[in-house]
């Protein structure tokens, strides 16, 4: 099992650059809404400020709040080591899609239990809504793996992006499956229309409610982990569904071109998320949950088409 030095470098790049990408997302939202907004490097300053402060923990909290944030951040950084960014190859390597998707279950279980640990109403409410939404989003992750397996007969994400990188014209069902995964990204990362990531009102928060009681370095770890998680999901979307232009050889020109195309695609995705967050409003919990059976029906259509049409 070979693990190239380049895989290591590109994963470290994701971990270091993800607050910058989230800063770009917030700046795009600000420009679309018509105000100047904070600078692109603001998330770095926020994290530094939080790391300088001391922690306050509740007198009823348990070992979950003590070790939880560290394990959440550790699991998220580990997933960053399992995906290709702008260079991939067909060698035998790590990167099984199942391990990737289930590694986020570590993050989920700790976050939900931190919400219940704080023994306040907000925590319980956030945990209950988050567990409900992620229960309904499980079939969407199954669609991702099934569709890619039917297309490329492989479970390894490096091999999938290598095989798909030669094709320029995809069939229609490929794009339908991409829409299905986009809705899964919005559900898992607490974006509109399932949750509003900027608010602290009881009516409108889900992810923020679970981490309401954390402060100081705990909050810094959990925030950094949510930034990295969004970037990793976007990279999975880019490299599985639209991987044309990814570098498949180790020559300098291919790597440079791959890096450039990757940055352009990532900026497009961030612009798409900014447009969705600006134009749509957060929907009620049960109205938002109605999107899931519609997406499952879409996924059924995609897999039927790839078999039959």
């Amino acid at each position, binding site marked *: 099992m070979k693990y190239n030095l380049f895989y290591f470098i590109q994963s470290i790049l994701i971990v270091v650059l993800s607050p910058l990408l989230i800063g770009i997302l917030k700046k795009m939202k600000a420009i679309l809404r018509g105000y100047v907004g904070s600078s692109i490097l603001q998330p770095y300053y926020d994290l530094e400020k939080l790391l300088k402060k001391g922690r306050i923990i509740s007198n009823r909290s348990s070992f979950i709040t003590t070790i939880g944030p560290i394990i959440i951040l550790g699991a998220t950084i580990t997933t960053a080591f399992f995906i290709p960014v702008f260079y991939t190859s067909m060698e035998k390597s790590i990167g099984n899609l199942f391990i990737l998707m289930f590694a986020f279950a570590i993050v989920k279980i700790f976050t939900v239990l931190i919400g219940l640990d704080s023994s306040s109403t907000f925590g319980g409410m956030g945990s209950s809504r988050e567990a409900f939404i992620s229960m309904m989003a499980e079939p969407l992750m199954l669609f991702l793996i099934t569709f890619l397996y039917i297309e490329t007969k492989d479970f390894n994400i490096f091999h999938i992006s290598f095989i798909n990188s030669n094709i320029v014209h995809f069939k*229609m*069902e490929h794009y*339908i499956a991409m829409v299905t995964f986009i809705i899964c990204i919005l559900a898992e990362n607490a974006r509109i229309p399932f949750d509003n990531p900027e608010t602290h009102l009881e009516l409108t928060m889900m992810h923020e409610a679970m981490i309401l009681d954390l402060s100081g370095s705990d909050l810094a770890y959990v925030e950094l982990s949510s930034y990295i998680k969004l970037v990793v999901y976007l990279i999975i979307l880019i490299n599985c569904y639209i991987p044309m232009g990814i570098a498949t050889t180790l020559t300098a020109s291919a790597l440079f071109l791959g890096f450039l195309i990757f940055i352009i695609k990532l900026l497009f995705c961030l612009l798409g998320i900014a447009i969705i967050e600006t134009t749509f409003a957060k929907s009620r919990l049960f109205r938002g949950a109605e999107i899931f*059976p519609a997406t499952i029906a879409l996924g*059924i*259509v995609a897999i039927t088409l790839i078999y039959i*049409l």
Partner: protein
Amino acid sequence: MIEALLTIILISSIYMSGVRRIKLLTGGFVFQSAAIGLIAFKLGYDTGEVHYYVLALLTIITKVIIMPLIINKSVKKLKINREMELMVNAFNSYILTGTGIMIAFGLLNKSHNNFIKTGIALFIIGVLLMVARKKAITQMLGFLIFENGIVLFEISLTKMSFVIEAGIVFEGLMLALIMGIMIFHINKTFDSINTDSFENLKE
């Protein structure tokens, strides 16, 4: 190109099976009929036969321009614009739509004609929409989707007769007109178009 249009038809029908606002339903229907018109257009361009062009023109004129006007006028007179209580709730109707599409494609696996498969899928979705809703306007839209399915089914026949397609198109137009007038009169007499209260007519 034809595959992309057929996919747009299926996606719009999934969308229509769960929304509550009449304007969005009409929008989805317009999308679907425009896609059918474009398919007929492209088929006419490929084969060069004239009646494909005529069908495309008739579909676009009646279903994309005239029918939404009629529906919007009725909606404005009746002052309703959404259907709040569905008989089969949105969750289940989406899943039934997906299952219906899967079964339709499974039944006709052997034939290679894509239009028959999409046509039968539209049949199932149209009937579902007619059965699962309470307000008469949505039931009418369900019947119009059924009509679309018949048009698609008919495109797949190799020898099309001009009379049949003209008949279908005019029947759809008449139906929309009649339903619009009837709904207005029903509302005037009974003060509601909720078909639940129609049961009281039994006595």
